[in-house]
């Protein structure tokens, strides 16, 4: 039996090697549809920073564009600025984080959604609740009334 007869479909025309790429095109097409689907379905507007490991939740409410206060294991970040150190906040007795309070009062007009101050807290899952409590208390004192937490939808990892 000739080596290039039935099983091996590679063709040699006048010395030019022509591989059979139909199966590769099939894979590429399936991959393309999958990627386009995953690209278009989720229109997340709040992007968690890479150093924050979000908690898992069964909540299915979609994320909306809001002011974000990010709590990493080391820092508290608001309006793209580091406003406090988590270790210092844990040691402090005060419920109010002064630099965050000043910043939130300043950016409150940008955080208004339907006439009420609204923020999303992007918090690392292992941060102690004491820090989250102080952030919420501070934001509340600055005029924020609607709070939400950013989480990863369970089963989607």
């Amino acid at each position, binding site marked *: 039996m000739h080596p290039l007869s039935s099983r091996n479909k590679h063709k040699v025309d006048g010395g030019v090697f022509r591989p059979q790429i139909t199966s590769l095109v099939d894979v590429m097409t399936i991959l393309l549809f999958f990627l386009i689907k995953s690209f278009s379905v989720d229109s*997340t507007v709040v992007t968690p920073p890479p150093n924050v490991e979000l908690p898992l939740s069964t909540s299915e*409410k979609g994320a909306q564009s809001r002011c974000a206060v990010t709590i990493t294991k080391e820092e508290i970040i608001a309006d793209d600025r580091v406003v406090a150190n988590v270790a210092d906040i844990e040691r402090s007795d005060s419920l109010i984080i002064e630099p965050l309070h000043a910043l939130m009062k300043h950016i409150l007009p940008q955080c208004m959604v339907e006439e009420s101050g609204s923020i999303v807290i992007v918090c690392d*899952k292992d941060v102690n*609740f004491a820090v989250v409590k102080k952030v919420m208390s501070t934001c509340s004192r600055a005029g924020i009334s609607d709070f939400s937490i950013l*989480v990863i939808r369970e089963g989607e990892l």
Partner: protein
Amino acid sequence: MKLSLFRSSRPPSEMVDADVDVTPVMNVFVILIPFLVSMAVFTHVSIIEFSVPPDMGQGTGDTSGKPKLKLTLLLTESFLGITEGENLLDSLPVLDNGIYQFDSLSARLSVRRSQSEFPDEIIVASRDGVPFKYAVKAMDVSRECGFSKIGISGATADPSKGR
């Protein structure tokens, strides 16, 4: 007789292989797929909305008279508790390996909800040293039990200190 209008009239021995040039298609794929992979979303994020206690907020709540007692889910480093006012109704200790018994909590919370004056409302109160992920899990369990209005609050270890 012809069965189909589109059937080729040539006998199979005369059919020729048509060589389709897929190089431009492959070029498009090679550019498009890395772009889409870089933009693809593999984890889906969502939000949990909650309220803060009136004394933490703007004071918009009704301050006249005594506050009504609502169910409170208490999270401490050593146990999970269901309280109403100062009465501890149920408690579930944290297991030796540090795991909270959220599965058992769900059943007990459903029972307490059916007996509560406010079956839609619950406050999740967590002690300072509890990791944030357990507060989120407690909110999930509360929502799955049918509570639609979930508040979040700090729980004091020493009530005499006031916070």
